């Protein structure tokens, strides 16, 4: 599965850089922004403070000046010279005097108002029509006529004039008032501006009367200040001709209440502001550089650090695709290095796990195959067993009636010949059924004393009847002591199997099949003897054929389960592997030698075991005698007595106990231990089963036979518990019992038989 392609904006680097840049940007910009605002505010405040101070200065300056002027004017006009002129009431002289006054006093113009309100003036000096100015000065003059000197500020024709009026009096009577006018104009404001380093604008009725600033839009620019209305809260920022000022607006104190004249005082902070801006720009520039450098550094570091991660990613991808040989290079001792180490460990473990897994799977598959095969065989066996019974009935009818018919047929007739053939066919069928049954009998080996010679004879007889005519069969028996311990059925099965294999090998060409039975003494390290065999006396059976032989490559595998050279349906390949297993179980060995084109010889080694009763060959009808020490446990006294008697007849040494608990104690303490215990199943206190289990634990070398009168209520027939060698049903058949005793005695864990 391909990993999804990384989108550029979601890469590791970007993920780190973006926040870093963001943070750095924020850290740079935000403080700067706050600082600049603060500083601008500081500048503005400073300017405002300046303005306020200037206002104070302005206002007090006005008052002081007015007072000074009034004083000076008062001094002057109280001179007798002027008084005398005033008494004359002559316009020309007055005009002349006023002109002189102007020269002395430095006012812009002068007016003389008589007590009857006639106004005389020096008209050349007036900036405009005398009447207008006379009217403008009237109030001030009137007040002076009343005896009070005063100053007012009035706007005339868009100009602002200060009128200072002083009474001229002789004694207590007022002759008239002199009004001196000075323009509050450009010079005045300029001087003020110079003094206070502020700008001053004088407004009369909404128009600019005098100003130290000459901006084309001055009125508009001052609008925010004028718009304050009556509140006059304080300094406000104002921009005039692009320059930043703080402005204060006020009313000339000396103006008439009904015609207020305004002044605007502007304090500039443009200069500092410009410096501030410049510094900010510089700082910003520096910060950008710093950010850039920082980001580059971070980017570089990230690349450095994330390289191991990229390596890891690549390696992980490779491992994910199955290449377990790749490892990550450990480049550092930090977390990335740890990760690399851990990852490598994981890969190694994966490799090992996978190998293990593969092995396990292989084993499982092999086991599964074997299991399936053995299940099939078992099913086959069950089937065969089921069929065999009915089949034998049918065969019985064929053979039986055939026999009768044969008896009634005259010799030499075709009838006789035909019936003989029918009988032969029936015999073959009988043998076949027996073979099938024998095969399906996956029995636990019943170990008993076996005479190989008689087994061999049975085998050969069987084969003779079934082998094709082109195969000859012969035997050679070279011994008299042919006893071993084992399962006769199984051994028989093996010998037959070897024979049929041999016959199969000779089926096309025909040939000779020979069974040889001989005694053999195995010495340590002897050649031609399978190394597995312990030294001792053995029975050796050789099965030789003159068939096509076995290829050397196959020889090694010939005992493998399911190995067969036969086509499908002709053989399961089981025979030899089963034979191998069985012979090993018997303590023997099987080997094969072959020459291509000449023939094959299978050799079976079985250890010689002296029979328990070598005098009389065992048979179903014969009692088997023996030696040994037997304990009989049965709460039924007559039964126990009878049993004891029979056993003593067979040659055994017998003791009895009627109580199973006492019996157990006896068994436990008896030295040397009993060879065999024969116990009834149902007894009070300790049952036969419990007793058997106890014996199995305490004295495993003591054999146990259990008797029962019922038809096997515990299902022991099918499943003998460990330790119980045999089950005998009552009424006891003593032949069977003697056989069972013989079998159990000869197959105890530590048998005392000696192998010569």
């Amino acid at each position, binding site marked *: 599965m391909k990993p999804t392609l990384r989108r550029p904006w979601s890469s590791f680097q970007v993920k780190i850089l973006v926040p870093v840049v963001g943070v750095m940007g924020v850290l740079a910009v935000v403080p700067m922004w706050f600082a600049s605002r603060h500083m601008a505010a500081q500048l503005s405040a400073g300017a405002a403070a300046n303005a306020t101070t200037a206002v104070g200065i302005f206002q007090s300056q006005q008052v002081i000046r007015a007072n000074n002027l009034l004083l000076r004017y008062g001094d002057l006009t109280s001179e007798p010279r002027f008084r005398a002129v005033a008494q004359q009431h002559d316009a020309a002289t007055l005009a002349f005097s006023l002109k002189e006054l102007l020269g002395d006093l430095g006012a812009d113009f002068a007016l003389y108002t008589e007590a009857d309100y006639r106004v005389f003036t020096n008209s050349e000096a007036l900036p405009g029509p005398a009447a207008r100015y006379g009217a403008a000065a009237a109030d001030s003059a009137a007040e002076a006529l009343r005896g009070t000197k005063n100053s007012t500020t009035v706007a005339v024709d868009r100009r602002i004039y200060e009128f200072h009026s002083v009474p001229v009096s002789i004694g207590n009577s007022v002759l008239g008032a002199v009004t001196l006018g000075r323009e509050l104009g450009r010079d005045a404001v300029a001087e003020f501006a110079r003094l206070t380093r502020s700008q001053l604008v004088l407004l009369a009725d909404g128009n600019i009367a005098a100003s130290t600033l000459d901006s084309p839009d001055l009125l508009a620019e001052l609008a925010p200040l004028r718009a304050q209305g009556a509140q006059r809260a304080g300094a406000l920022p104002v921009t005039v001709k692009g320059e930043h000022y703080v402005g204060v607006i006020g009313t000339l104190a000396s103006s008439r209440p009904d015609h207020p004249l305004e002044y605007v005082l502007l304090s500039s902070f443009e200069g500092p502001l410009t410096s501030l801006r410049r510094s900010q720009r510089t700082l910003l520039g520096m910060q950008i550089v710093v950010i850039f450098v920082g980001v580059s550094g971070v980017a570089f570091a990230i690349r450095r650090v994330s390289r191991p991660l990229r390596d890891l990613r690549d390696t992980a991808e490779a491992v994910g695709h199955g290449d377990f040989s790749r490892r990550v290079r450990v480049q550092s001792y930090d977390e990335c290095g740890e990760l690399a180490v851990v990852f490598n460990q994981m890969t190694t473990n994966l490799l090992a796990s996978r190998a293990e897994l593969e092995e396990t799977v292989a084993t499982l598959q092999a086991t599964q195959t074997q299991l399936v095969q053995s299940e099939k065989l078992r099913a086959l*066996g069950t089937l065969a067993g089921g069929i065999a019974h009915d089949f*034998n009935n049918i065969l019985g009818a064929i053979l039986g009636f055939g026999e009768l018919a044969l008896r009634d047929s005259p010799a030499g007739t075709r009838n006789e010949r035909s019936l003989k053939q029918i009988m032969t066919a029936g015999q073959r069928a009988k043998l076949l059924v027996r073979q099938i049954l024998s095969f399906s009998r996956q029995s636990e080996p019943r170990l008993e004393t076996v005479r190989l010679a008689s087994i061999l004879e049975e085998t050969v007889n069987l084969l003779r009847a079934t082998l094709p005519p082109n195969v000859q069969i012969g035997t050679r028996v070279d011994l008299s002591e042919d006893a071993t311990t084992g399962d006769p059925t199984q051994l028989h099965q093996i010998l037959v199997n070897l024979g049929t294999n041999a016959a199969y090998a000779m089926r096309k060409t025909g040939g000779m099949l020979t069974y040889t039975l001989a005694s053999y003494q195995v010495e340590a390290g002897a050649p031609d003897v399978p190394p597995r065999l312990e030294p001792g006396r053995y029975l050796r059976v050789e099965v030789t054929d003159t068939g096509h032989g076995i290829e050397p490559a196959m020889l090694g595998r010939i005992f493998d389960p399911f190995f067969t050279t036969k086509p499908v349906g002709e053989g399961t390949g089981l025979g030899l592997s089963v034979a191998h297993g069985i012979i090993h179980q018997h303590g023997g060995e099987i080997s094969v030698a072959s020459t291509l084109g000449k023939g094959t010889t299978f050799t079976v080694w079985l250890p010689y075991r002296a029979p328990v009763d070598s005098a009389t060959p065992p048979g179903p009808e014969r009692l088997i005698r023996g030696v040994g020490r037997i304990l009989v446990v049965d709460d039924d006294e007559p039964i126990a007595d009878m049993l004891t008697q029979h056993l003593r007849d067979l040659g055994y040494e017998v003791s009895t106990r009627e109580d199973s608990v006492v019996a157990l104690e006896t068994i436990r303490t008896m030295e040397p231990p009993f060879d065999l215990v024969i116990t009834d199943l149902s007894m009070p206190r300790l049952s036969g089963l419990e007793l058997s289990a106890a014996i199995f634990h305490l004295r495993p070398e003591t054999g146990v036979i259990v008797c029962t009168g019922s038809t096997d209520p515990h299902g022991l027939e099918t499943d003998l518990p460990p330790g119980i060698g045999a089950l005998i049903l009552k009424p006891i058949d003593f032949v069977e019992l003697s056989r069972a005793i013989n079998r159990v005695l000869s197959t105890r864990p530590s048998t005392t038989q000696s192998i010569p």
Partner: protein
Amino acid sequence: MSRILVIDDDQQVRALLWEILTDEGHEVIEAADGVEGMRKFRDQPTDLVITDLIMPEREGLEIINQLRREFPSLGVIAISGGGRVGASDYLPIAHMLGARKVIAKPFSAGEILQAVQELLPPSRT
């Protein structure tokens, strides 16, 4: 002239035994199952009983058991088609239960006749 009871659920087996035994001069009573067999035996006991082992519900074994208990001196021949039931054959069990002879199927006339000969009470040959 002896009377022999033959118990087998297979008709052909019964027919065959009838032929063989009557040839030898014996009288043959037939029964198809254990219940019928016991009934006929109790009606009129025979000198010998030949019984199959594998009949429905292991009747054969029970018959042998029963007969041997009630008539300890009676000779019983057990015949069987073999086949595997459980871990061991029935024939040895039959032997344990008291069948004096056990003969595997398919049997020959000679086998049957020899066994009958051996088991018949001496006075009746």
